Every structure is written in structure tokens, then in C-alpha cells.
């Protein structure tokens, strides 16, 4: 819609951020904390997709080694989250355990924990069968042990997005929801972002568009292969408290936890169908059946509970399963998208990194693996 450029500029800011998921809101907050004027454009509403409807795991356990320094730095912010955003985000510091069901799985985990140690991180530990039984009294007896991070946790995803957004807003950041970016143009060192109802002008631009991050990158002349996936989750009726922390499985896809209100969330990465053109997702019941079967296998007492709801959020997946966090090849533009199903824990640090890049063109965390031109 070239016509939108004929109008006068409606909004001006130092930085325009595209996407009000957790990373967009976090970037807005970190920038606003530095007194930078920010405007965030969101085509739906803040936290509508993967950021707001994910499993809420705050997990270093089992991370890709490239993400480990970021994840460790983010964990520090999570532990102090209430002081940072004035809301506890539903965050509970707790253990994360990945159970091993066979001796082979256990030895695979030992190798992994050693590898992490050699990289200088000591938060992942092995636990034996007896310790596992003590920590998870209802785990199936066939589970032989597992690996653990004692002080990971979980949070309420939508509330977290909302808290970051409200805090950023309180510091002057502006959010425009229901505003879809139609075109992006750079003139005389200024970005002009044309939307259906306004034009935003800013010297710097940040792309936090999640599953739609590839489309925004394309408008900047870059190719990033990010596909839209729909990660399915389901939740049960309330049950008496029987499990603490978050539980995964080495040999199966699982993320399992019980909220303080008694409901149990079962997820972990089974995919439905995502349609990013009309925001719809479709659930695949054969995948949910496998997920339910896994939950029942690890926790046999689950069999008599009822699934009350199932849903899926649209998330951006990259070919190598790690995100794009990178300066653009275009001047004064930056990317943070494609977190591939594990970006929630990285949200607090993701915003810090992008704000560092915007303000100083550098950050003290290693970003080489996340370059946009790696594809």
C-alpha cells in the first residue's frame, strides 16, 4: 500500500518494534528503562500467539549449548522478576526434572551433563532412581532416574507478557494493537513503517514478529527460513496436589506440571497445524493421544483425570531449532524471532540483548550462533 506513504507520519519514536510477544515487550521495557522512546506495533494483541499461550516453562535444563549463556543470564532476571516488572508473573522457582525410563537414556543424560559441565555450567545434575521417587512420589516405578535443575521454574505466560507490557507502558512505551505492518521503507536514515491505519517513523527498527519474523525480515531484504508451527497443549480438571516443578522425559515429548490451582498442564511439543494467514490452528488428536499416553505412562495416576481444554499457539521454527538474534544486514535494524518453541525463558534477556544492540551495537553475550545470515 504505497498510498500510506502519502499520508503524513502519524507516530514518531526512537525505536519501532514489530511484534508484542514477550520478546517485543521485553525489548520495549529494556529500551524504555534507558529513556528511549519506543512504539510497539502488534497485528493482533499482546501475547496473542506463542508468547501468551505456551507451557510457561522457565527452563535451563536440556538447553542447546549455544543458548546456555543467554539462558543462564535470563534465569537471574527471572529469580528477581517481581522487582523488575512489579508483578510476580506467576513465576515459581522450582525444580525441572527430565526422567529417564531406561539405562540407555540415563547414560545419554550423563554424557550430556558432563558436556554442560565442560562448558562451564554446573546447574544440571543427575539423580538416581531413589531420589527421583522421593522427589516425584507418583512417578511410574519403571523410571530409572533423571537429570535435574533445582532452581528453574515456571510462570504464567499471558500474565508475564502483560506485566512486561504494562511496565514498559508505565515508562512511556506506546503499544498499538490490531495494527498490521504492510510495508517498510527507509529514507534518509529513517525507517517508515506503513500500517493499514498509520505510518510510524523511527531511526531504528526491531523485528520481534515471532512466526511472522521471516516476513518482516523479507521486507528488509533478508531471507530467514522460519516456518509457523502450532505447539499443542492441554489442561486437566483440578486435581489434589501431587507433583511439584516441571517434568519432562528423555525419550518422549513431554512437558508436565501442576499449577497451584490444581490443574495439570500437559504439553511438550506435539504439533497441530498452524495457519499464519488467518491466525488459526487446528489440533491433531493423534498427537494429543500420544501426549496423553506419555503423561499416563510417566504418571499412572493421571488416567482418571479429565482433559478440559486443548489449544495451540503459533510459533516460529527455524531449520536448526535456535532463534535469530542478530543485527540486520540493513542499517539500524535488528532481529529477535524464531525461538522455535523455547523462547519464553529467554524473554527477559532477549529484550536486554536487543536493547544493547540498538543502543550500543554490541552485547556481552555470544550471538554468533544466532546470526540471520547463517541460513
Amino acid at each position: 500500500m504505497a498510498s500510506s506513504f502519502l499520508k503524513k507520519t502519524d507516530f514518531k519514536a526512537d525505536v519501532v518494534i514489530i511484534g508484542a510477544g514477550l520478546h517485543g515487550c521485553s525489548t520495549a521495557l529494556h529500551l524504555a528503562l534507558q529513556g528511549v522512546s519506543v512504539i510497539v506495533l502488534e497485528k493482533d494483541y499482546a501475547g496473542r500467539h506463542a508468547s501468551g499461550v505456551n507451557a510457561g516453562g522457565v527452563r535451563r535444563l536440556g538447553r542447546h549449548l549455544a543458548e546456555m549463556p543467554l539462558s543462564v543470564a535470563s534465569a537471574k532476571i527471572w529469580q528477581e522478576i517481581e522487582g523488575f516488572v512489579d508483578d510476580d508473573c506467576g513465576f515459581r522457582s522450582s525444580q525441572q526434572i527430565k526422567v529417564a525410563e531406561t539405562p540407555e537414556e540415563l547414560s545419554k543424560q550423563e554424557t550430556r551433563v558432563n558436556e554442560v559441565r565442560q562448558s562451564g555450567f554446573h546447574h544440571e545434575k543427575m539423580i538416581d532412581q531413589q531420589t527421583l521417587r522421593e522427589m516425584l512420589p507418583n512417578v511410574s516405578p519403571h523410571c530409572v532416574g533423571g537429570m535435574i535443575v533445582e532452581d528453574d521454574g515456571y510462570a504464567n505466560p499471558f500474565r508475564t507478557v502483560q506485566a512486561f507490557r504494562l511496565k514498559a507502558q508505565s515508562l512511556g512505551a506506546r503499544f498499538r494493537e490490531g495494527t498490521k505492518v504492510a510495508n517498510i521503507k527507509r529514507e534518509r536514515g529513517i525507517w517508515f513503517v506503513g500500517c493499514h491505519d498509520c505510518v510510524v517513523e523511527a531511526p531504528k527498527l526491531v523485528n520481534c514478529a515471532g512466526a511472522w519474523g521471516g516476513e518482516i525480515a523479507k521486507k528488509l531484504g533478508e531471507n530467514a527460513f522460519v516456518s509457523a508451527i502450532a505447539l499443542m497443549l492441554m489442561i486437566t480438571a483440578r486435581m489434589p496436589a501431587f507433583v511439584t516443578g516441571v517434568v519432562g522425559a528423555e525419550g518422549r515429548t513431554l512437558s508436565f506440571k501442576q499449577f497451584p490451582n490444581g490443574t495439570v498442564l500437559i504439553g511438550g511439543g506435539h504439533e497441530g497445524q498452524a495457519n499464519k494467514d488467518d491466525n488459526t490452528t487446528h489440533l491433531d488428536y493423534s498427537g494429543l493421544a500420544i501426549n496423553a499416553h506419555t503423561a499416563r505412562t510417566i504418571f499412572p495416576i493421571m488416567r482418571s483425570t479429565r482433559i478440559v481444554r486443548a489449544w495451540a499457539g503459533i510459533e516460529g521454527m527455524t531449520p536448526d531449532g535456535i532463534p535469530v538474534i542478530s543485527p540486520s544486514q540493513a542499517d539500524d535494524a535488528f532481529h529477535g524471532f524464531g525461538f522455535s518453541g523455547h523462547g519464553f525463558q529467554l524473554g527477559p534477556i532477549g529484550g536486554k540483548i536487543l536493547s544493547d544492540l540498538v543502543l550500543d551495537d554490541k552485547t556481552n553475550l555470544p550471538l554468533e550462533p544466532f546470526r540471520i545470515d547463517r541460513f
Partner: protein
Amino acid sequence: MTQHYEIIVIGAGPAGMAASQTAAKHGAKTLVLDEQRTPGGQIYRAAEANEARQSVELGKSYENGFSLVKSFRNSAVDYVPGASVWQLSHEREIGYSKDGTAHIVTANQVIVATGALERPMPVPGWTLPQVMTVGAAQILLKESEIGIADAVFVGTGPLLYLVVHQYITAGIPVKAVIDLTPACNYFKALAHMPNAVFAMSRIMEGWRWKREIIAADIPLISRVDDVRILGDGAVEAIEYRHKSTWKKLDCDHVLLHQGVVPDVNISLAAGCDSRWDEAQACWHILVDEWFQSSVEGISIAGDSGSIGGGVAAEQRGHITALGALMRLNKITPVERNRLARPYQASLKTEMQVRPFLDTLFRPADNFRMPEHEETIVCRCEEISAKQIREAVDLGCQGPNQLKSYTRCGMGPCQGRFCGLTVSELIGKFSNKPVCAVGYYRLRPPIKPLLLDELANMKNQPEN
């Protein structure tokens, strides 16, 4: 193996029974899934049992269902009672549970005939144990020959008066009838009277029921514009505002009713388009003249699309099936049109009375959008009107965000008893039309599903 049918009908009320009979008559391999134990839906519930015991209290319109149920029983359809449908996908894959086992079936054409449910009536105290819907009282009477002695009937709509009449006929004592029909509705409804003349006998029947209440010395309190039910753990009294004065009536049971609305959960979860109907103050599923929805191969028959009543539902069931049969090439378009004509004619006559009824019995705003802020809106998660207003004040724009803010609508009933209230309340608090506020985004399972049943589906061989 997944079983496949040419036509699957969900629901065995008048629409479902009519649709499946027509479908089977023209040679379509047809399956009927129904949650209840016997055919009839809510309107003709337990028809067979009542015919057998020659009940007199249920009246003539109920007896109309006897022949429909009989011919349904005699038709060549596979009928599965006690089947709880928890999924209908846009590819027409249906998941249902029966006796603790989940099944998947598929069809070329699906006819949703899940009928109506009673409109939520959020008044203070409506969650107390001895408060039920008038429909629930009627179900107890039809199916179990149980009456609720000395109950106070509260609300508006034809069903309220019908059930009071049935109670009087059956000799069950009624404590009082509190009529909440807004006085202004009578004048507004007069404008629709000319179209409703054919239905004069039914309108007169309504007047007779009213006279019968008075003749039976049952207090009939009209022009009441607010009520609240009192009690701590059990109903103790009902308070009502009559001509600006609050009065109190001690009682043990309260029966509420303010009309019926389409049960749209299954259609919305399947992705069918809907629109807000201001006259009926509920969502309608958009359909074409053969009642096919926006999702190809999924049709909506009867009250589950929009409210037309039991007789209209039967006609719509036949017409819907003819549309589906044509799409299956079982009949030609010419045959379809010819066969549909008589049903369409009766449907047209039947629907002429709707504007009159919809206007007369449209519940007042304060009974749809509670003004007492402590009133529970979401019965499952116990979310009050106040909590909804506070969420809107915080920036909540719609029902889906409200779930994230408050858990409203996230309990086992999946929004069926709060969804309408929530959409209208958010519209009121944020000064937006209800159509802009929208409804809950619904997903399968549309009824809670035993984890064991879901897990066992993993072992089912694909076909």
C-alpha cells in the same frame, strides 16, 4: 478402524430425528449420535416412556413427538445413545465417548442438531443448590416423574408458563410465579402481532395458562424488574423488586428461566462462522438455504443454529438432510427442491410467530448483564461481574483475554453458562457492540474427556 458414514447426525431431538430419517430414506448410510439415553431431545424427552404410561400432564404439543420418535426408531439408521461428542473437526472427523471409550468416526456430511440450552440467568444466589432451571424441573417431570413441591418460578418465556401448567395439571404445589417480562415488551410485541395471527391458538393457550395460575390461587407477580435469591448454602428466600419496592418471599426452591439459546459450542469449535443476533440476543450460526454452514459439509439443523422451536426444528431437519443428500448425489437438485417444498412451506408459517415471541420474551438487560457486581457470572470458576469489569478496566478487550486474566470460562462447562453474559458484559463495560467483542475461541474437546480415553486412542490403528 475409523468408521465412515455418508451422513452423521449429532443429536436426536426433533431436528436430528427428522434429518436422519430423511437421510436414511434416500439410501444414505447414516449414524446418529446422541448424548441422552433415549431419543426425543429435550422437547420430546422420554417420549416413549410417557406414551407407555399414558401421562396426561405433559400436554398435546409433547404428544406430537410420539410419532416422530416411533418413525425414528423404525428408520434404517445406526443410532448410538449415550454418546458424548467431544470433537468435530472441519474435516468432519468426529470424536465421541460412550461408556468410557473414545471413538473416532468420519462422514461426508455432518448435520449438527444439538438443539438449544437455557439462557444463562445470572442473578445473585443462582448457584445455590436448590436453584435449578425451569427446563431442569421439566426434565425431572418428564423423565423421572419427580416434582419440586412449593418452588417459586422466576423469569420469562413460554417454557416457564408451560411448566407451571404441567405442574398444576400434575398436582404439584407451586409457591409463586414471578414474571420478569419487561412491561414495555408487550407494546413492542404488538407490532409483530399481524404476522403471528396464524399462531393465535398458541398465544391464546398462553393466556389460558396465566388464567389457570390465578384460578389455582397461585400468586402471580408481574412487572418485577429485579430479583435476588438469599441463602447461605441453601435457598432461604427470594427478594424481588415490584414497583420500586423490594419484597421478600420465603421459599426452599427457585426455578429460573429466561428463554433458550442455540448450543453453538460444537459448530464454533468446528470453525463455522457466526453472527450476533440482536433480536434474540445470542449467536447464530450462518447457514445457506439448505442450512449448510460456512464449513463445507457441516450443516446446522434446528435450534442449534438459531431458535425456531420444536416444530420448526423438525422441518429444518428434513430440509437440511435433503441438502446433504443432494451434495452426496443421492438426489438431484430438482428432486431436492421438490421434496423440500412442503417442509419449507410449514417452516415459513412456523417462523412467522418468532418476531412476536422474540420481542415479547426478550429478557431485560439487567438479567443478561448483572448489575449486582457480586453476582457470579462463570459458575465453574466462580468469577463475578465485578472481576470482569476490573479485567476490562485493566485493558482486557475480549472473552479470550478474559480467560487469561481471570480463568472465566475455563471450567468444565466450557463457557456454555457464561459465554453470552461475558460477551455482553465486556461490550457494556468497554462500550463496544457485542459483535465486535466476539465470543470465546472454542476448541475440542468441547466436553471434558477422560485422559485414559484419549491415551487409548494412540493404540487405535489408522485406516
